[in-house]
């Protein structure tokens, strides 16, 4: 059911983003990348935030459960995917508006670091060992890595910005564009929930398959001895 909601949300977004919302004065049609770029970035922040929170829940003894670890992992995977989409859509937009695919301003540089940091997080999850070892290692790493998110967001305020400042918070977007943007945010959030739900279920099945494999191997070994 959530899947249908996601599809409906995206249909709505396409309608508003591509057709109903107005062109920008200077950028004309090019501004429409906004409706993918900003929600993707928002989704990546959300995903990494959720990874941080789930990791914290895992580390606290009272709430320790591998479910939190799997949610953290699934969320990080989705986050990395959408951070990649943000960077690609952003560089395409930059080509149109600034004339260049990339520049080393504060927002882009810090975003690139965030992206690589979470790729590192995903690599650490694949290091091997028991599920608990994986969970503990990646939980600590996630808590360190999530500190980078505010850095990325506020980098436009603190350092040399070429990238747009906070237009939404400062109320600079006009009615229909702002509405389309919110449609985008909602659709992407629904997409995030759907993706993480399904991905964490796959991770749970993977873990269970690993455990079964281990049990089967142990049983074989024991049978060898008995015989």
């Amino acid at each position, binding site marked *: 059911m959530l899947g249908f909601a996601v599809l409906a949300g995206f249909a709505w977004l396409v309608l508003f983003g591509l057709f109903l919302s107005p062109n920008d004065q200077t950028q004309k049609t090019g501004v429409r990348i906004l409706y993918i770029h900003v929600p993707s970035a928002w989704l990546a922040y959300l995903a990494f935030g959720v990874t941080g929170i789930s990791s914290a829940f895992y*580390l606290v003894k009272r709430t320790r459960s591998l479910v939190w670890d799997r949610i953290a992992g699934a969320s990080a995977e989705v986050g990395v995917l959408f951070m990649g989409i943000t960077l690609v859509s952003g560089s395409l937009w930059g080509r149109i508006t600034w004339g260049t695919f990339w520049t080393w301003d504060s927002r882009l540089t810090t975003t690139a*670091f*965030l992206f*690589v*940091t979470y*790729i*590192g997080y995903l*690599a*650490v999850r694949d*290091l*091997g*060992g028991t599920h608990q*070892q994986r969970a*503990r*290692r990646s939980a*600590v*790493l996630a*808590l*360190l890595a999530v*500190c980078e998110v505010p850095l990325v967001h506020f980098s436009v305020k603190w350092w040399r910005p070429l990238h747009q400042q906070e237009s939404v918070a400062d109320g600079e977007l006009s009615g229909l564009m702002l509405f389309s943007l919110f449609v985008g945010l909602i659709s992407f959030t629904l997409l995030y929930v759907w993706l993480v739900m399904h991905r964490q279920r796959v991770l749970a099945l993977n873990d269970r398959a690993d455990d079964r494999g281990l049990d089967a191997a142990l049983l074989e070994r024991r049978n060898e001895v008995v015989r």
Partner: protein
Amino acid sequence: MNMWRIARLVAVKDLRVEWRSRVMTNQVLPFAALVMVMFAFALDSDQVLTRVAPGLVWLATMFSLLVIVQRSFAVETADGALDALQVAGVRPGGIFLGKSLALAAQLAALELVLLAAAVVLYQTELLAGGVVLLVTTWVAATTGLAFVGTLYGGLAAGAKGRETLLPLLMLPVVAPVLIGATRATEAALGTNDATPSDGWPWIGLLALFAVVFGAGGTLAFGSLIDE
């Protein structure tokens, strides 16, 4: 046994191992010097080299840091030394501080050599007015790097694929130190028309980084090496 005593013992142990094996002096220092020479080959212009000298010094430091951290933890995992320390009931925070201290000492020596190499190879000139800033940068950046190196070294220690994982994990994290240390060193040396007063805000960044990773590392190191 209190944590500071443990830290001192671990640090002395690490430095003694290094002194007897001479890996730092025979392998890492030549590597770092070689990196500086390779930069000169690549950039092939005296003006460019002098302008970017601070950045190159810190970049060479980062690359050498990876090698030194690998070495520092290879020593521990070789005969299960780290496990033995834990079983003996030594507090992990103390191990962390001790290893960081030893790492910082080695890094500090390395950076001095690299600065000397820059003076010789890139015609860098030392300003009298910037010496205080230079020394402060040296201390602050080295401390931060040592804490991060020990923390991530512990994370990747004893895990398969650790050699390729460590650079991927560490370089994004030390990026703020690279930026801060380079800007502060530029200010101290007067490169690119920077004055020493421009450098002090960057020292703030370096100090914050060192404090965050020092505290975080002391708390998290135990759970990371607990396999």
